[in-house]
């Protein structure tokens, strides 16, 4: 009898998805993983405001399925698939990221977690943060344990953001913050805020700004929700009254916060342009939804409008993909991200106008047969204002991309 060395049994189920570098094998393994781990209730493709999982210390899960889906994805790093493993991500390269999104769309899976920590703070910390800051702040974002909100605009600083006045003084062993922010997204439910503050009142306006991280539970922080035309209050006013902030909570250099802000705004622009809004194609065609609303018979004008919107949706989706591919090849979008933001948000407004049209009188009822559609429609009107208005985006393109004078 011959003695042979037994082969180690290969249990594919035990290997982590992120260890699989071959795209084909990754796709197969991911399919199996999604089949086993994505709860049925999370496969309805819902992306409306009410179905989003935002996470955070005080997050009340809408269902067990929502909790399971978040935790399962987080344990594989799939809430932030491209972040490095050390910070809670899956470390996927662009090829596998594309596969991940394609497979998620294939089963119509909801995003397990959405947050300003993922879209905005995370990219800023990955670029400007110290190693300590990354290890401290990023993993809780990836796990959905800490919910962040942005603190950018002020009553007197909207499109002219750099004129912001919230004061941040050096008190030796801490910073002291006083002032007011507005349009702070869900500040009343956020655990932390990342804010732009003025640390040098004498410097030119872009050169006296710093980027600080504040715990919303700090003494002196208060919030007041703003009721919008949709009836919802996704934004707040946030007040800082002698708030003490530990010295290590500045990201990047003191007085160089505008660099962080600009970098972060490019991410925000890409996000608002559709990356997070399901615009990137692959999902259900707008025309199909409109047709269903209209009982299979769209009138001529609606159908023509639907075709135009579909053409533009697909082309803008491809443009988002192209810019991501370019970024991976080392060609950052820079000021051209203003184009993504402008085109994506204007299209989204148009899409919701069509959805209101196809819904007819059903779409006019609050919480009627079409659910949140009227509220969602009204919400889209902010798309071309928040994160820089369409007009500001066009001016950025004109001056910085095309080099026009003035």
């Amino acid at each position, binding site marked *: 009898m011959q003695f042979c060395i037994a082969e180690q049994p290969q249990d594919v189920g035990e290997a982590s998805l992120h260890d699989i570098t071959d795209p084909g094998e990754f796709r197969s393994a991911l399919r199996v993983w999604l089949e086993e781990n994505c709860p049925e209730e999370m496969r309805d493709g819902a992306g409306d405001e009410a179905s989003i999982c935002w996470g955070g210390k005080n997050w009340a899960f809408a269902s067990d399925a929502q909790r399971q889906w978040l935790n399962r994805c987080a344990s594989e790093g799939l809430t932030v698939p491209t972040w490095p493993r050390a910070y809670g991500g899956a470390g996927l390269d*662009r*090829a596998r990221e*594309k*596969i991940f999104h394609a497979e998620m769309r294939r089963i119509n899976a909801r995003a397990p977690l959405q947050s300003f920590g993922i879209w905005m703070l995370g990219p800023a910390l990955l670029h400007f943060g110290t190693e300590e800051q990354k290890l401290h702040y990023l993993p809780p974002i990836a796990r959905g344990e800490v919910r962040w909100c942005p603190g950018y605009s002020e009553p007197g600083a909207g499109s002219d953001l750099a004129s912001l006045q919230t004061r941040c003084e050096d008190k030796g062993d801490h910073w002291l913050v006083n002032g007011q922010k507005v349009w702070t997204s869900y500040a009343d439910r956020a655990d932390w805020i990342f804010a732009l503050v003025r640390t040098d009142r004498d410097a030119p306006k872009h050169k006296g700004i710093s980027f600080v991280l504040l715990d919303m539970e700090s003494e002196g922080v208060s919030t007041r929700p703003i009721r919008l035309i949709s009836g919802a209050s996704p934004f707040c006013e946030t007040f800082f009254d002698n708030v003490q902030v530990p010295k290590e909570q500045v990201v990047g250099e003191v007085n160089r916060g505008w660099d962080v802000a600009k970098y972060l705004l490019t991410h925000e622009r890409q996000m608002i342009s559709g990356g997070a809004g399901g615009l990137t194609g692959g999902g259900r*065609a707008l*025309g*199909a939804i*409109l*047709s269903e609303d209209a009982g299979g018979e*769209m009138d001529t004008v609606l*159908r*023509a409008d*639907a*075709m*135009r919107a*579909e*053409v*533009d949706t*697909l*082309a*803008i989706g*491809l*443009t988002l*993909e*192209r810019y991501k*591919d*370019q970024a*991976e*090849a080392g*060609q950052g979008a820079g000021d*051209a991200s203003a*184009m993504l933001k*402008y*085109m994506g948000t204007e299209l989204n407004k148009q899409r919701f106008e069509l959805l209101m049209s196809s819904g007819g009188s059903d779409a006019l009822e609050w919480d009627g047969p079409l659910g949140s559609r009227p509220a969602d429609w009204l919400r889209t009107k902010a798309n071309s204002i928040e994160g820089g208005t369409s*007009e500001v*985006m*066009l*001016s950025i*393109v*004109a*001056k910085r*991309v*095309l*080099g*026009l*004078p*003035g």
Partner: protein
Amino acid sequence: MAKLVKTEEEVMLADMARGFLDEAAPVGHLRALRDTGQTHDPALWAEMANMGWAGVLVPEAQGGSDMGHAAAGVLAGEMGRTLTLSPFLSTAVIAATALRHVAGDRAGAALQAIAAGQRTYALAVDEGTKHAPEASQMAAHKVGNGFRLNGAKTFVVDGGNADRLLVLARAEEGLTLFDLPADRAGIDRTGTAMIDSRDSARVDFTEVEATGDDVLGTVGDAMSVLTPALQAGQAALAAEATGLAAGAFGMTVDYLKERKQFGVPIGAFQALQHRAAHLWCETEVTASAILNAGRMLDEDPENATLAVSLAVSLAKARANQTAKLAVIEGVQMHGGIGMTDAFDMGFYMKRARVAAEWLGDYGYHAERVAQARGF
């Protein structure tokens, strides 16, 4: 999944093409041809053939450079930028793709002649004012072992100068594609004076005799050869129109920086800045659809899938729309000078209109997008 970034080779090809075309065939070249009543420049085409452009889709075995559809799009885009007139689309893209889908020595020899720049083609499919190949009524009656063709084709682009015609006709078995010499007895070509100063013809067929050898592919199954050829042509034409938009846009932005009114460059006015910026945004979005169509065609050489059809129609629809916007805005932002024949913008406007109509207008391709997307 191929990346939507131009490869190093594609960037080099574009630079090389741009250098050549700026020298050999700028817009002034088209103007000179128009002013002397010409619609073809054989010497220019010979140079393009020498650079491998005529054989861009011809296999190396037949003397081609076989660079693929994305590369053909790069070349077409650069030719669009300078409004270069050549048989590139009809011959190097459409006919070469059709011939590649046919087995046999004759097709091989034809491909060889295309790559060498020795043979040009025109596609004769449409009969009405709109692109509708499947509605072709031209008759191919069986006579003995061959056919007799009767009917008329309109808007046969490059049809006045081409050596051969790819003709779509209806046989008893269904639509059939013929590859005929343009001078065969019974073929009568009438050149039409087109707004873009290029070659187009109405072609009448009276008792034209064709043999079984003249059939490209299978009798009654034209579409398996014609569909990929049309898709390749539509993608390359979309690339040309997008290059055209970029050319018109470039002229316009330069003008905004130069032209002074009220004591300042007019490009300092926000009203014009925003128009120009919007136009740039549209060209960027369309460029993505163009690159994607080239990639999809290269990844699926049979061109058979719905995904390819969607990608091509998306590109053509977007390109039609963007080129139209670019020339309308181009004239408006140039003001009065944009309306003069002495200035080049009018050439861009007229070519944009023809390119938008040829091989399917916005409505045709948007409809195909809608169908592919399930509505």
